[in-house]
C-alpha cells in the first residue's frame, strides 16, 4: 500500500519496484544478486546471511546465556536437588514440601484470582488509554503520558509511605470513597476478602503507565497515511481505533499481555509494602512464599521449586498466546 507511492532510497522510481518482495528470502535474493524473480538462493548467500545474523546477535546471546539461561537452569536443577546430596541427586522433595505447606494452597488461589482479574483489566485499560492518548496529540498527550508513567518511577519506602496514607481511611485523600465502601478504619480496608482489590489498585497504579507509554509508542509508528486512507473510506474514530490501529500493534499487545501476566502472577512488592505497616507477614502470593523459603528458612531448593511452578504456568500461557497469534511470524504492515 503505502510503499508503492514512494521513491526508494536508491533514487529509482516507483515503477522499478513494482512489487514488494513477498518474503525475506526474496529480499535477501534481491540484496545479494541484485536480480529479482530468480530462484533458488545461492548457498554462499545463505551462509553469509547466517554468519551476519549470528554476528549481530552474539553479544546479546552471551548475556542471555550468562544472566538469563544459566541462572534459570541452575534454579531448575536446584528444584530437583536433594538438600545436602550430590550434584546429580534427583528428588521431588522440594515440590512435595511446597505442596504440603498450608500456606501454599491459599497462595496459589490468591495468585490465580489476582492474575485473572488484573491482567485483562490492565490490557483493556492500557489499550484504551493509549488509544485515547494517541488521539490527543501535542503537549496534552505528553504531559498526561508523563503523569501516567510517574507512579512507576516511585520505588521502595516511598511507595510504602504513599500507600500508608492512601489506604487509611483516617488520612486518605480518597476518604469519601473509602467511607462509601463502608470502610472506616484501615483494618476494614485490609480485611482478607478485600486484598485482591487493594492489590489490584496498587499494582495497576504502578504498572499501567509504562505500558501506556510503550503502546503509545507503537501507535506512533503507524504511518499517518493509513489514517488518511481510512478516513477516505468513511472510518469513524472508534472504528479507526478498533479495526485499524489495534491489529497493527498486535505484537506489542501480545508482549504486554505476557509480561503483565508474569508480573501479576509474581506479585511481590504490593503485599510486601502492606506488610511493612500491617506486620502481616503471611506470604500472600507464590513469589513471597519462594522468598520466605529461600531467605527465612534457607531452603533454596523449595524456593526454586515454587519459582519453577510459577514460570511453567506463565510460559504455558505465553506459549499458547505466542503460537496461536503468530508472534514470531514475520509481518509486513
Amino acid at each position, binding site marked *: 500500500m503505502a*510503499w508503492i507511492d514512494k521513491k526508494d532510497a536508491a533514487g529509482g522510481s516507483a515503477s522499478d519496484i513494482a512489487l514488494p518482495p513477498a518474503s525475506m528470502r526474496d529480499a535477501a535474493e534481491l540484496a545479494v544478486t*541484485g536480480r529479482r524473480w530468480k530462484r533458488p538462493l545461492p548457498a554462499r548467500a*545463505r551462509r553469509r546471511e547466517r554468519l551476519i545474523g549470528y554476528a549481530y546477535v552474539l553479544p546479546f546471546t552471551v548475556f542471555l546465556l550468562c544472566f538469563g539461561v544459566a541462572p534459570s537452569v541452575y534454579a531448575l536443577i536446584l528444584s530437583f536437588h536433594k538438600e545436602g546430596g550430590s550434584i546429580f541427586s534427583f528428588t521431588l522433595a522440594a515440590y512435595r514440601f511446597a505442596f504440603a505447606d498450608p500456606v501454599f494452597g491459599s497462595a496459589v488461589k490468591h495468585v490465580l484470582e489476582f492474575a485473572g482479574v488484573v491482567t485483562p483489566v490492565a490490557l483493556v485499560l492500557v489499550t484504551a488509554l493509549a488509544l485515547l492518548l494517541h488521539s490527543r496529540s501535542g503537549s496534552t498527550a505528553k504531559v498526561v503520558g508523563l503523569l501516567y508513567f510517574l507512579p512507576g518511577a516511585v520505588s521502595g519506602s516511598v511507595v*510504602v*509511605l504513599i500507600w500508608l*496514607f492512601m489506604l487509611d481511611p483516617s488520612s486518605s485523600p480518597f476518604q469519601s470513597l473509602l467511607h462509601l465502601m463502608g470502610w472506616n478504619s484501615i483494618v476494614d480496608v485490609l480485611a482478607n476478602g478485600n486484598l485482591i482489590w487493594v492489590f489490584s489498585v496498587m499494582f495497576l497504579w504502578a504498572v499501567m503507565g509504562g505500558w501506556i507509554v510503550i503502546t503509545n509508542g507503537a501507535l506512533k509508528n503507524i504511518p499517518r497515511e493509513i489514517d488518511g486512507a481510512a478516513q477516505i473510506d468513511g472510518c469513524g474514530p472508534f472504528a479507526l481505533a478498533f479495526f485499524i490501529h489495534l491489529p497493527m500493534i498486535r505484537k506489542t499487545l501480545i508482549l504486554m499481555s505476557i509480561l503483565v501476566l508474569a508480573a501479576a502472577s509474581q506479585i511481590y512488592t504490593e503485599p510486601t509494602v502492606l506488610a*511493612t505497616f500491617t506486620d502481616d507477614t503471611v506470604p500472600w502470593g507464590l*513469589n513471597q512464599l*519462594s522468598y520466605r523459603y529461600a531467605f527465612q528458612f534457607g531452603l533454596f531448593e523449595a524456593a526454586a521449586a515454587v519459582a519453577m511452578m510459577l514460570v511453567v504456568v506463565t510460559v504455558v500461557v505465553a506459549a499458547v498466546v505466542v503460537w496461536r497469534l503468530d508472534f514470531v511470524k514475520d*509481518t509486513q504492515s
Partner: protein
Amino acid sequence: MSAWASSALRLSHQRSGRARRLWVRLFVYAVLAVFIIYFAVPLVFLLLAPSQGSSEALNAHPLQFGSIHFYWRAWSNLMTYANGQKLLLIWGLNSLIYSVAAVVLAIVIGVPAGYSIAFFRFPGRRLILLVTLIAMVVPQNALVLPLFIGLSYLHLIGSRWGVILPSGFFPLAVVLSYIYFSTHFPRQLLGAARIDGCGELRLFVRVVVPLTKNVLPLIAFFSFWASWVNYFLPSVILNQVTTFSLPVGIINMSAATNAIIPSALNGGLGSPIGRPELAEAGLFSILPIIIIFAFSQKFLTQSPLSGAEKT
C-alpha cells in the same frame, strides 16, 4: 487537532456530526481525567508532604499545603544525615552512573540482536527469541542465588560492576526492537541499499541506525527506568553506603528512622529523617525520570519514517 478528527469533521453531517464529535471529545477527556486523578493524587500527596514539616502536621489532611520553608528544612536534614555526607546526592550520582551504563549496554547489545532476529534467517533465531521471552518471566527471586554465586566468583560482590554487568542483560530492548523491525521497518531499503553495493556494517550504521529513531528513545528510556528503580539485586550486591543507588540508599535510610513505623528499632528520637524528609527524597528520586521522559518525548513525536523514503 489530529488529522483524523479534522477529516471526520469534513465528512460528517453538519449539526449531528458536530454534536457527536463534542460528546466523543468530552468522553475522551473525562476518561483521561479520571485516570489522571487515580495516578496523580498519590503523587500530589508526595509533592505536598514535605511542606508539612513534622509528623504531627502529617496527621492532618494529607493534601494540605504547609509552608515552603519546610521544603528547605527537609532538604537540609537530608544533607546532614549521616555526618553531612550528602548521601542523597551521592546516591543520585551512583544511580545515574548505573542507569546510563545500563542504557548504553542495552542499546549496543540489544538493538543489533533485534535487527538480526528480524531480518536474518539463521537456525536458532526463533529459539533465541523464545528463550528471551522465557527469561523475561522467570522470577527474580529464583535467580538471585545463582547470580550471587556467579558474581561472587568473579569477585564482583560489593563492586559497582556487579550492578552494571547484569544490567547489560535487558531483554526488553531486543523484543521491542524486534517488534519494531519486523512490523514497521521498510525492507525495501535494505534491498535497495544492498543493490548499491553497501556492505553489511555500513548498511547497519548508515541506514538502519538512523531509522531506529522511533524505537531507540523508547528502549533508552525503559532501560534507564528499569535500572533506576531496581532494588533487589543491587541491595544484595552493594554493601558500601557510598556505592548505593537511590532506591537502596533511601530504603536503608528510612529503615533506620521512624519515617514509616515509629519504633525504637528504627533510630533515636533525634533522627532528623521523618516523613517529610522521606517524601522529599522520593521527589528527588523521581526528578531525573521526569527530565529523561521529557527529553525522549522530543524524539518520540516525530512522525514515523519521515524522510526515510523521501531522500
